[in-house]
């Protein structure tokens, strides 16, 4: 908790649940003393993105619409963590309603990438910069689960929940140098996750290593009767082997992911990674996912349509913000929604409603659904032809400075930044971003692995092997060093 306080300048947390966290920690300790921990996660501090419902703790989605909203129930994933004895430290910052790729557009302000304050970044970048103030050079976390990524990256928690609709867990994971897992759609319950795009959203898991991700996945996955889109099959939690042989695998390198704007650095890292697998005996081949380039446009239509629909419930009547307007119900709705939502949200609602109009539905929504099927089929074809895992970059560049990021609007940025992650959400596949190396500027770069539906075990096994090979360096943060004693004792992974 004190580390959270000393890293408050990162703005990773919206709410710190100090009292309840201390209580939970106390009770956990009691259980350990009795020799009766609830499970592997008992006592482990976690953070949850502020678009998950947490009973008794404010859930804002970084929006005026829900500022002060205290939900009466826990999201299923939150409940599962609590049932395991995890300690909920607080709710993390995000782009308003998870719309964005920088975690910069929420009412609580932008999240700062902890690496901005790392020795690695300061050594490499700051001497070169002309600005005297290190303040203006801080870089974004990526988004929209930036708060969660920053929280894990700065050691204020061991694991955090994010959400992933177009890359919102993997993108900040890559920028913040942590592991970001997007599970298969339908594996983890969305009950209690305030939706962005119901047909693409999944709860995401952010941790410092792949083994931790496997542990958290194990306690979250499985059918939830409260979410009709979760699969019925029983999920068997797994442990990852320590000795991994990748020689029997076929790794696919989709050529379309060599997208315009991909930095030469990342391209080189990608290539090096492919070589790593080749050298280990795996089959590494180039593959094609021809409809990749349509995914952003397709996503815009489907996402905005669902957003327009999902946001219709925010009318100020039952909960949340209500404008001070009494003339009529309709004027109250209009004022509430104008004042409660930011530009990004309102823009998407307007676009979405446009696409859903009777005269446009066929040309936009139906068309986009068809394109979506084509994109999903690209993966089916590739996976069906013998490829086990796809290897791609997660982001086009390393994290950009905030001052540069805000020069373009949210929509433009989202369109640019989602290109390498979005198609996976279209297809509902599992994917994971693994911190690979530091860039020239001393900032993390991650690479992405995409697996077969519901084959998280294989995906994480390959990811773990890769993680071992690259040995990504630990962040060197002043604040963390000061907490050395307590932190490093728990530095070892929970497994």
């Amino acid at each position, binding site marked *: 908790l004190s580390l959270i306080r000393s890293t408050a300048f990162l703005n990773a947390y919206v709410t710190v649940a100090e009292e309840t966290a201390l209580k939970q920690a106390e009770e956990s300790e009691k259980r350990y003393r009795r020799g009766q921990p609830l499970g592997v996660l008992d006592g482990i501090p976690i953070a949850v993105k502020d678009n*998950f*419902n947490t009973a008794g703790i404010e*859930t804002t*989605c970084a929006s005026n619409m*829900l500022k002060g909203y205290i*939900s*009466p*129930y826990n*999201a299923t994933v939150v409940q599962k963590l609590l049932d395991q004895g995890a300690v909920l430290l607080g709710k993390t910052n995000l782009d308003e309603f998870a719309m964005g790729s920088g975690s910069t557009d929420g009412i609580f302000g932008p999240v700062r990438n902890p690496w901005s304050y790392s020795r690695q970044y300061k050594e490499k970048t700051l001497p070169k910069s002309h600005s005297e103030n290190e303040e203006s050079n801080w870089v974004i976390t990526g988004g929209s689960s930036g708060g969660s990524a920053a929280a894990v990256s700065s050691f204020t928690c061991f694991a955090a929940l994010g959400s992933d609709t177009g890359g919102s867990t993997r993108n900040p994971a890559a920028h913040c140098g942590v592991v970001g897992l997007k599970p298969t759609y339908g594996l983890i319950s*969305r*009950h*209690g*996750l*305030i*939706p962005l*795009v*119901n*047909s693409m959203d999944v709860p995401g898991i952010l941790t410092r290593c792949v083994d931790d991700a496997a542990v958290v996945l194990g306690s979250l996955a499985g059918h939830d*009767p*409260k*979410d*009709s*889109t979760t699969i*019925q099959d029983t999920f068997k939690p797994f442990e990852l082997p320590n000795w991994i042989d990748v020689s029997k695998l076929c790794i696919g390198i989709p050529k379309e992911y060599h997208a315009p704007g991909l930095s030469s650095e990342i391209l080189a890292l990608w290539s090096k990674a492919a070589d790593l697998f080749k050298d280990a005996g795996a089959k590494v081949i180039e593959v094609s996912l021809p409809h990749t380039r349509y995914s952003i446009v397709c996503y815009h239509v489907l996402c905005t*349509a*669902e957003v*327009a*629909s999902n*946001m*219709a*419930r*925010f*009318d100020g*009547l*039952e*909960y949340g913000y209500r404008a001070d307007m*009494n003339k009529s*119900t*309709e004027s109250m*709705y209009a004022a509430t929604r104008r004042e409660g939502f930011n530009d990004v949200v309102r823009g998407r609602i307007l676009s979405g*409603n446009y696409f*859903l*109009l*009777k005269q446009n*539905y066929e040309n936009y*929504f139906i068309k986009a659904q068809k394109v979506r099927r084509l994109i999903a089929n690209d993966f089916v074809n590739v996976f069906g032809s013998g490829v086990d895992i796809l290897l791609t970059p997660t982001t086009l560049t390393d994290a950009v400075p905030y001052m540069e990021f805000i020069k373009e609007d949210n929509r433009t940025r989202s369109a640019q930044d989602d290109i390498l992650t979005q198609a996976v959400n279209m297809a509902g596949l599992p994917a994971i971003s693994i911190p690979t190396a530091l860039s020239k500027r001393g900032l993390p770069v991650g690479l992405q692995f995409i697996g077969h539906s519901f084959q998280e075990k294989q995906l994480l096994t390959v990811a773990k092997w890769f993680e071992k090979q690259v040995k990504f360096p630990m962040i060197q943060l002043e604040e963390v060093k000061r907490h050395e004693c307590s932190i490093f004792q728990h530095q070892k992974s929970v497994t």
Partner: protein
Amino acid sequence: WVPVVGLEIHAQISSNSKLFSGSQVQFAAPPNSLVSFFDASLPGTLPVLNRRCVEAAVMTGLALNCSINKKSLFDRKHYFYADLPAGYQITQQRVPIAVNGSLSYSLCVDNKMSQMVTKTVRIKQIQLEQDSGKSLHDDARSQTLIDLNRAGVGLMEVVMEPDMCCGEEAAAAVRELQLILQTLGSSQAIMAEGQLRVDANVSVHHPGEPYGVRTEVKNINSMRFLAKAVDYEIQRQIEELENGGTILNETRAFDSKLGCTIPMRDKEGKQDYRFMPEPNLPPLILYDARSLPVDMNHQQVVNIDWIRERLPDLPSVTRAKLVELYGILPEHSFTLLNEDGLAEYFENVIKKTQMKPKKVIGWILNDLLSYLKQHALTVKESPVSSFLLADLLNLLEKREISSSAAKQVLEELWKGEGKTPLEIVKEKKLELIQDQKELEQICQAVIDGQEDEVMAIKAGNLKVLNKLIGLVQRATRGRSNPVLVKQILEKKLSE
């Protein structure tokens, strides 16, 4: 002019809980006491389909000769209104659960029960959808009070094609549907409690010409008003067109006090509901005996054939059986089924009496029913039980009393003082005179007192005999057997 009437009927499903959430379904509960998180549209909540509602819809579809769609879909219909918390209703617009059925109903020609004609109306479809909450407008304080108890209750919308031509047909069709729903138990269909709501689509045109513009008439909450509203609207349209006016494609409300339809508050042009597939509900898959996988868990599926096998006799079948079994007239069977509990009452009497059903029915329909109607009682509330009536009819059948005496006894029985028919007969000395000699004496006395009539009879006017019989009846206070009296009089007069 050819009037054309189609109907959209919303029947509330009789179930313990709502269509997509676990909150209870109950009429007249304290406001907002039956509202789950999902009903209140709290963010993050998801719909979970209620199995009983699906079964009710399948039952109803089968009873209406529909094809049951083994795969049906759910959609969101968007509009903003205070009683619709989510800003959309979940319904089935693209592919409903049942389509292409028919309903047969009967009408009396010229109000004569003895001439019944059977008509058929096509059922376009049956869809499952959510009911909305209730809003009460308090104009005095310029506020609206919202009660969400009804929000989310399951509805079956039954769409009847415009095959009807007047109010009477519409009412008869709805009445038959109501009986079917009540027999199936899929809906209690009590209009007064809002469990059955009818909207009528009305238009007129000249024979041979295309259909005219139609209006929708809403707010019809009784069977009586349905016929009135439809007929008024037909008349209004005819008058309007004959005066050179045009019909607007609008929604009108029926004002029961004034007996006319009035335009509803202008909704600013046609609504675009921006239909979109409901992403949180997978397609609804139903099985039949052939398609049911062997290893499928019974609890998880709805088997159409299983439901079909368990359908109770529909009203038309029950009526036919009554006619066949008891030799009563078809119109009698209609009346028996039209009154809740009457058919059962009838059969109970039959079981306990030797009197032939064809005679019993007269007592049921003429005496019992008219008394109940006069005092606005239901069959269940009848002070005369089927046992009592059967006892009485037995006395009559055994010729211990005359039929006019029986009517007197029935009068007494209505008082509900607990006396048996036999007790009343003894009390009022209503037994038929069994003593032949006594009867002959009385007959002689009457003959002696009616010289003119005797002469008329002897002259060949046999109808006058009835007057004499009547006089004997009066003299005996109904205690004479008219058949016997007639015999005695005839014998005496022929001497």
